[in-house]
């Protein structure tokens, strides 16, 4: 403790020294004299001291916790709470009710923000399959999102096909692109995989920008139909609410399916693949099939929600599908907790809603984003919530608890 204190004092002195010319000395050119701003330098000293001390304190705390973990394997309170099934069902019920009344309480602006957050929830859950569960880093995930969005925009433009028809088609097209991308990269791992997927993301964008006869180039496609409801005419407000509810349904659907997959024979194979590829194949798991299924199923959700994105904005162009989007989706998965469905949902809300509501800081958005990521990696590398283990029931266990 005392050592930390001393270190922090040294650091604050060093900072004062470093920033002295900038913060303390100012040449007032109108009056031809030098101002000494002692107060500012005091603030620098205090600020750097507090920051440095807090940093050390939390790092020490983390070290302690690590020791605890190694001894007893304890989890955080949040984690334990989430593993309690009873609590989980109640919490889910409450959340669902809240989600359903949300558009009735708030205005269209809020609803729109919420819809984009929900879109990112689905994207995060999709990417979670390939990155979080199967451990296949994908930096071009937005490509599948673009596939979905453009398939709706184009099919709607040329053939006047409706939202509900294209919704599954978008998903399936996303899937197909997942397989097409998956084949050449079956043998790649780690960094190489990241680079190839990054390239794939770029290729899709470049193609969309330049193949004007197909995709209308950078100017994009406008006047895409909103989702219809029995041919009713809807104004902006009610249409937004309608899309909101579709989105809620889609999110629930995604959660149900990804949860089932995660706790199935297939999901276990994905996790095993992430943990150790060689052991995984040596245990009789077909690597090619497992990898392809992870890519395809991950891409499926992006394709599907891409359709909804096009329907929501009624206008899309290649600028919506930049690398930045892929990076945000990946951050959602990493921040939330790789492999954890609940974590990814939380991650999406934090990363999408916070910047919306903290408009005042919008200039510092990327700065805060980066800082948050760095801090996260240092203090909680497993994400907000790490994968929650399924509890398996076996006969003997039941008998033991019955007897005891």
């Amino acid at each position, binding site marked *: 403790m005392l050592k930390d204190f001393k270190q922090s004092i040294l650091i604050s002195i060093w900072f004062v020294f470093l920033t002295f010319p900038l913060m303390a000395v100012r040449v007032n050119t109108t009056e031809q004299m030098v101002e000494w701003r002692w107060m500012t330098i005091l603030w620098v000293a205090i600020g750097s001291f507090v920051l440095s001390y807090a940093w050390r304190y939390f790092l020490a705390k983390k070290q302690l916790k690590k020791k605890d973990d190694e001894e007893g394997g304890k989890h955080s309170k949040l984690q334990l709470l989430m593993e309690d099934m009873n609590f989980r069902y109640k919490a889910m019920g409450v959340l669902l009710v809240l989600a359903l009344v949300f558009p009735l309480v708030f205005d269209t602006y809020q609803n729109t923000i919420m819809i984009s957050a929900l879109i990112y929830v689905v994207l995060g859950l999709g990417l979670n399959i390939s990155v979080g569960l199967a451990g296949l880093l994908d930096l071009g995930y937005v490509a599948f999102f673009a596939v979905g969005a453009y398939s709706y925009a184009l099919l709607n433009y040329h053939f006047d096909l409706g939202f509900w028809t294209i919704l599954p088609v978008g998903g399936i097209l996303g899937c197909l692109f997942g397989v097409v991308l998956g084949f050449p990269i079956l043998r790649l791992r780690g960094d190489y995989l990241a680079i190839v997927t990054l390239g794939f993301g770029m290729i899709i964008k470049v193609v969309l920008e330049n193949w004007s006869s197909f995709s209308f180039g950078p100017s994009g496609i406008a006047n895409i139909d909103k989702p219809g409801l029995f041919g009713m005419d809807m104004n902006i407000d009610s249409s937004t609410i309608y899309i909101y509810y579709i989105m809620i349904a889609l999110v629930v659907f995604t959660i149900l399916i990804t949860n089932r997959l995660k706790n199935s*024979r297939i999901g276990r194979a994905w996790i095993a693949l992430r943990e150790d590829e060689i052991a995984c194949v040596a245990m009789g798991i077909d690597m090619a099939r497992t990898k392809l299924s992870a890519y395809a199923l991950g891409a499926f959700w992006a394709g599907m929600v891409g359709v909804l994105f096009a329907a929501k904005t009624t206008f899309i162009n290649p600028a919506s599908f930049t690398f930045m989007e892929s990076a945000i989706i990946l951050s959602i998965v990493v921040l939330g907790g790789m492999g954890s469905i609940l974590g990814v949902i939380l991650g999406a809300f934090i990363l999408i809603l916070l910047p919306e509501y903290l408009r005042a800081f919008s200039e510092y958005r990327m700065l805060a984003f980066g800082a948050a990521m760095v801090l996260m990696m240092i203090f909680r590398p497993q994400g907000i919530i790490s994968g929650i283990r399924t509890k398996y029931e076996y006969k003997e266990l039941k008998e033991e608890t019955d007897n005891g």
Partner: protein
Amino acid sequence: MAEKHKLLEVKGLTMDFGGLRAVDSVSLEVHEGEIAALIGPNGAGKTTFFNCVTGIYNPTKGDILLHPKGLPTRRLNGLKPNKVTEMGLARTFQNIRLFSDMTVLENVMIGRHCRTSAGIFRSIIRDKSVRREEQEIVESSYQLLKKVGLAEFANEFAKNLPYGAQRRLEIARAMATEPFLLLLDEPAAGMNPQETAELDQLICRISEEERIAILLIEHDMKLVMNISNPIYVMEYGKKIAEGSPQEIKDNPKVIEAYLGEETEEDA
């Protein structure tokens, strides 16, 4: 001895890594009910031999033939590891390769993968047959854990197990694939004498009760002497001897190989 069914037959297996010949025309056979051992100093090419047999490497030359009982003979050269495992040949690794962020039970459940069938759609729908299959996976995996004495750790993370237990978990995971031949790569490495004795018992039990033939790599000659027969000895990629423990013990080439190594270590 002669009537015993031949399970694995390796003929003239050779594996080159660039200019290095790690395995040089090694032939070896494992019969039903046997605990065969492959021993030799470090770097002799034992692990490479295993990797060729289990499909992780594609051998440069030679034949690997599998004769499952009641089924036609299969040549394993060039098959993918998962196919080899499906044929009934499972293995463990010298440098433990568990799925460390999965629970002990789940590790064994992975072994059941190739003996179960639920695909993507059935997993999503999760009808009765899938639920029954899942329950079967859990029960049989748990039974295997009991057999290797790890039942109490079922819900621990594999990475939190002590070293000896991790090795036993690898054996349980391999057994979950229902092999008729089990390849163990230095299962006793890093174990203390007590753990090693327990492991010897476990291996004998697997061989007798489960009727699984075993081919075992061991670096230390003394350990295998009391449980395995026949023993094959490798040095510098070549097979230098084979026979019963007594024959191996008296073989001058083997003595030289091991003594040679000891003097190297002393130096």
